[in-house]
């Protein structure tokens, strides 16, 4: 009972924040709403006892990805008028995609829900059960190829992004860190011993 009240409360905040992402006029506010959305999804995962996924969601998306998003959005010039026009122009497409996703989710839940009866919810986890350990045991044995292929694809994406954005301009001045570190004081400063001058 208490659990379901909490669930609906958090789900409501989640939906509100998600709407805020779309409808707020200021991109920075949108990003902050998205951060709230991620946080709420993490909370919902925590309620489903998937604490590893929940904390990793906060760590990766809130802690790193959204920080970089915010970084980029803050640099952009805020054009409220253009953003408002975009909303109405892309609305049909967005609604179409949303409906498709709802249809898919309903199908999935219906498919999985077959043969599932009662309102007991999740099976109770055994004593000493560690979500992280269980996930690791599956990820590094059964799904190790998929896991490693995903890692290689990500590495590829990083290298591709760097090669695409790296421009070698002629006449670019770069610091030679090795030379900077190996500088000694006597190369730069000459200390001259002088006799004190007499007063005129």
């Amino acid at each position: 009972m208490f659990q379901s009240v909490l669930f609906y409360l958090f789900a409501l905040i989640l939906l509100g924040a998600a709407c805020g992402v779309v409808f707020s006029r200021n991109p920075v506010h949108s990003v902050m709403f998205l951060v709230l959305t991620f946080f709420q999804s993490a909370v919902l995962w925590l309620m489903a006892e998937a604490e590893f996924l929940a904390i990793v969601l906060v760590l990766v998306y809130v802690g790193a990805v959204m920080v970089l998003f915010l970084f980029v959005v803050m640099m952009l010039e805020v054009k409220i008028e253009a953003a408002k026009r975009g909303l109405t122009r892309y609305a049909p497409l967005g609604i179409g995609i949303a409906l498709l996703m709802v249809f898919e989710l309903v199908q999935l839940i219906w498919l999985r829900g077959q043969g599932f009866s009662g309102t007991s919810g999740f099976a109770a986890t055994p004593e000493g059960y560690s979500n992280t350990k269980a996930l690791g045991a599956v990820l590094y044995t059964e799904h190790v190829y998929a896991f490693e292929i995903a890692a290689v694809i990500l590495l590829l994406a990083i290298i591709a992004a760097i090669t695409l954005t790296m421009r070698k301009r002629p006449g670019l001045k770069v610091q030679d860190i090795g030379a900077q570190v190996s500088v000694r004081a006597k190369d730069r400063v000459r200390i001259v011993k002088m006799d004190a001058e007499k007063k005129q």
Partner: protein
Amino acid sequence: MADLMPQFVVNWVNWGMGVFYSLPEWVQYLTITTWKILFVLIAVILIVAFSTYFERKVIGSMQARVGPNRVGPLGLGQPFADVIKLLIKEVVVPAKSSRFLFVIAPLLSLIPALATWAVIPLNDWYVIADINAGLLYVLALTSVGVYGVILAGWATNSKYALLGAMRSAAQIVAYEIAMGFALVGVLMAGGSLNLGEIVRAQEGGFSQWFLLPLFPLFVVYWVSGVAETNRAPFDVAEGESEIVAGFHVEYSGVAFAIFFLAEYANMVLISTLTAIFFLGGWASPFEGLAFLAPLAGIPVIGLLVTGGLHWLFIKMCIFMYTFFWFRATFPRYRYDQIMRLGWKVFIPVTIVWIAVEGVMAWFQVGPWAGLGG
């Protein structure tokens, strides 16, 4: 003990206990947890208050000055005088700022710094929430702290503040990766994500601490910690000489005080975490020495050999002192040097050391022997 107290006190205590145990279980739980939280919170805030005093005293003596000595004996009242001054000052909100974000930014930087204490074990049994994924929780919350700085910089609508926020964001994202990798090494050695288990893996004296086998990771974690808290020599986010005060240039009064509190709470937090991960947390360095074992029964000297809150506190104080020491010693890093150190030095070092650990665990050498199986 009981016969030392008058009869009516004993009666009162018994009556109180009776009432407490007759309450529903969740009320008991809530009461105990609330008291635990309050104790940790007050302790952290007091440590923060006095560390501002000690910082000024330490830096003062390093620069052959006296430091604060006017308020109270030895100037010990200085932190309270500062707080009262800040509380009665006016909070000025810039006219063209984003008002809501401007107000909530200091809170966003303070809340993660305090919430992380929930999983930190102060001794063998005192931990507010003994969760399995404690280390991940710590990483997640420390990475959230950057929002306060970024939003403060943006919401202020000032170029200096925005520059400070930009620098801080890039720096924290860079050093977070090195920090996370260093912690991967710790969890490999400890064999658990639970902070209490990590400390228990280091029990048995100085030689069992992760400080020695994980020395490169310790250095990386500690320096990254200094960078994460935006302290000197990595304090380009404030950079008084270039961008006035960086992200908090327009903050005054209580709002500034909260930023200040968050910075120092983060320092205390990083110091405690370093002690837990690498210096055996509450464990005593003299454990496991046979000739010191008889001391354990003696009232005060026995504390030397037995672990407890006092050891964690001492270790934390050592790291807090080095924070101040760094600030008095090193000039501010140039921005490109900060980036280079984070990306090109620390991250490779941590990756190499994790590989070394893996190989050693495979060959069943060192503290990782248990992982090899």
